[in-house]
């Protein structure tokens, strides 16, 4: 057993931290929340050049070799700095879906472009019922002259408005579980994308498919067999989201702890009050448990071990813990932390958004229970 990073991993972490501390300030995050595109193309290209997009991509597709654990280190740093933009949807959800189910041709065509930053992807699964189950997918794809015609509506699709490709989960038969994944180009005729206005200023979209024609070779994986792929991708994405969340939690600690050491009330630093101390102790406990659960799941994914149970455990715990940690942070910092100009609120909002993405705590507890019963 070993709980330490390798020295290479420490260097990775530091370099990511350094770049983002410089380029992704609170100011930048606030601007991008208002910005329609929602990210800086310059920073995007810089990250691509540094190889950040290539971490999940095998060398034969111009990646740097599949390494989920190292990716999670990067994601932690992105969470720490609230990096806006389509990195997660492209590299994590999109990349994982392609790796999981893409044909050689599909991979050969798209993965190199992910790796060098030229292609952005979004995964579209949720619909009006807002659920994570095959039954919730109603958007239909019907075969016609060697093509599939997709009609329906996807909701809460991350960063679709800046993506080149949308991976769309569609119903291809009445059988409840018959879901197929399609690679749709966002410029295809019949696709309309509308940005939604969200609490955290992250970019979620409604994507309308109005008789969108998609060639059969754009099926990702096999016909009617999309759900198991999607489930796997969502679970791995959940672990990756936990990496972001644990990074965000670390930043909250870095805001809170110096503050309670410096801020004086009733003649002493508030950090000397036992109730503040105990709240901070609880925060540290949340963060360390989140972190190890996440790294364990990431490590299992890399090793090729079963990871489903660990992924659900980790997302359930992180969903609750991150929210509670931010709430404790607000409580000990008090009025200052309630100000828009103080960065804590960025994390408050993103903690809730992340909590709901890829299944919240109740959802993943139920999945843990399915493993038990």
């Amino acid at each position, binding site marked *: 057993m070993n709980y330490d990073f390798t020295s290479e991993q420490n260097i990775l972490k530091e370099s990511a931290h350094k770049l983002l501390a410089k380029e992704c300030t609170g100011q930048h995050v606030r601007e991008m929340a208002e910005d329609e595109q929602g990210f800086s193309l310059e920073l995007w290209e810089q990250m691509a050049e540094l190889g950040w997009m290539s971490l999940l991509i095998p060398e034969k597709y111009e990646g740097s070799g599949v390494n989920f654990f190292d990716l999670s280190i990067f994601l932690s740093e992105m969470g720490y700095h609230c990096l806006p933009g389509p990195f997660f949807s492209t590299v994590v959800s999109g990349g994982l879906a392609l790796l999981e189910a893409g044909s050689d041709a599909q991979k050969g065509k798209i993965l190199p472009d992910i790796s060098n930053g030229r292609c952005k992807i979004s995964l579209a699964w949720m619909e009006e019922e807002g659920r994570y189950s095959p039954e919730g997918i109603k958007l239909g794809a019907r075969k016609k002259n060697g093509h599939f015609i997709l009609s329906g509506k996807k909701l809460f699709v991350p960063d679709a408005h800046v993506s080149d490709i949308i991976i769309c989960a569609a119903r291809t038969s009445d059988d409840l579980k018959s879901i197929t994944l399609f690679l749709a180009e966002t410029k295809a005729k019949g696709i309309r994308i509308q940005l939604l206005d969200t609490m955290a200023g992250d970019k979620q979209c409604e994507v309308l498919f109005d008789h969108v024609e998609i060639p059969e070779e754009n099926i990702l994986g096999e016909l009617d067999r999309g759900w198991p792929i999607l489930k796997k991708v969502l679970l791995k994405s959940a672990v990756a989201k936990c990496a972001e969340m644990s990074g965000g939690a670390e930043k909250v600690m870095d805001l809170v702890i110096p503050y309670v050491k410096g801020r004086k009330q009733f003649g002493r630093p508030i950090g000397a009050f036992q109730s503040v101390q105990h709240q901070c102790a609880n925060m540290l406990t949340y963060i360390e448990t989140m972190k190890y659960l996440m790294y364990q799941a990431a490590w299992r994914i890399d090793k090729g071990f079963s990871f489903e149970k660990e992924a659900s455990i980790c997302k359930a715990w992180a969903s609750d813990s991150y929210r509670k940690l931010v709430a404790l942070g607000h409580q000990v910092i008090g*009025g200052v932390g309630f100000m828009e100009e103080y960065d804590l609120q960025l994390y408050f909002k993103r903690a809730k958004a992340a909590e709901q993405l890829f299944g919240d705590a109740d959802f993943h507890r139920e999945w843990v229970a399915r493993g038990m019963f």
Partner: protein
Amino acid sequence: MDFHFSNEDKKTLKEVRSFIKAETTPELIAETHKLGHIYGGKEGRRFIRKFASNGWLTPNWPEEYGGLGRSAVLNAAIREEMAYASVPVVFVAAHMAGPVIMHFGSDEMKKEWLLQIARGEIEFSLGYTEPQAGSDLSALDIRAVLKGDRFIVSGQKSFNTASHVADYHWLAALTDPDAKRYHGMSLMIADLKSPGIDIRPMTTMAGWQTNEVFYNDVEVPGKNLVGEINHGFFYLMSALDYERMYPLAAYEKVFDMIVKYAKETITGGQPVSKNPIVRQKLAQIKIQLEANRLLYYRLAHMVDHGQIPNYQASMQKLFATETAQLITNTGMEILGPYSQMKEGSKHAVLSGQMENYYRTSVVETIYAGTSEIQRNIIALRGLKLPSK
């Protein structure tokens, strides 16, 4: 014991409900929404004056000061009605400053201020907190020096909500900087339009504005001193005790909206309200709302029976605000991704209010005494635990 409103109170409450329903015009709602407060604008002033003309702003005040001579229970119930109707309910003049003036002000001061307050003609904003003094209200820096018949005030306040819309500042200032803690502070009323006052907005994460208020040699008439000089901390603590109650009904309305949503929204072929886990969560909130209601009216009962609520007010504030946060977080959970949609966004439900209340509720356990301070008070005053 008796847990009912009197028939007379029930009748009044019915009238209040009808009034609010009839008088909250779209114009009023738009103005209130813009200002974040029901007073400060034309529509709001009209509404409040009309409302107050029934004596409803201060129903438990004596008639000579513009009240109805009715009970604190009725006062508490009216405040709940207003809160449920989303009429922002913090009236500093009527519910915090007024009672202090009534208890400690000179006859002249009472005559000058109480009727105006009861008629809803003027509003105060609280001027307690300063940058260095959060929970520690004894740590003030702002100075008021008596020169002849006026005080000259200099210094800075922060987190002073509503100073940009109120008429007067209910100001705590140091009048004897050499005195021991708690003994050099005075309370006074400053006109917010006085020369030398500079109000700078601070935006909160809930979107509404609070303020920094800068005093630069501002003149405050000596007659605006409340009670005796250097007794301010005592009055301030008393003000906290007299009418300290936290109407939770604004959040109760959110809860009712969530319940309705759960009934009407179908997921997986059945209403969300059939989900046993959702049922447990919403029932738990219902239970806490009921417990809070009992803690809330206890405060009014005490006042009506000649007692001064003490730790009981802390307990209600603590309980209510933790329940408020439970409501908003549970609502976010039940609405799922829809909860994140802001007002005006496509696919927003409950008019996009869920995420708004979720952000707003953050501050409830902080302002007007943090939960930690409330627990301290319950332990020290309610249980007489030793302070060291």
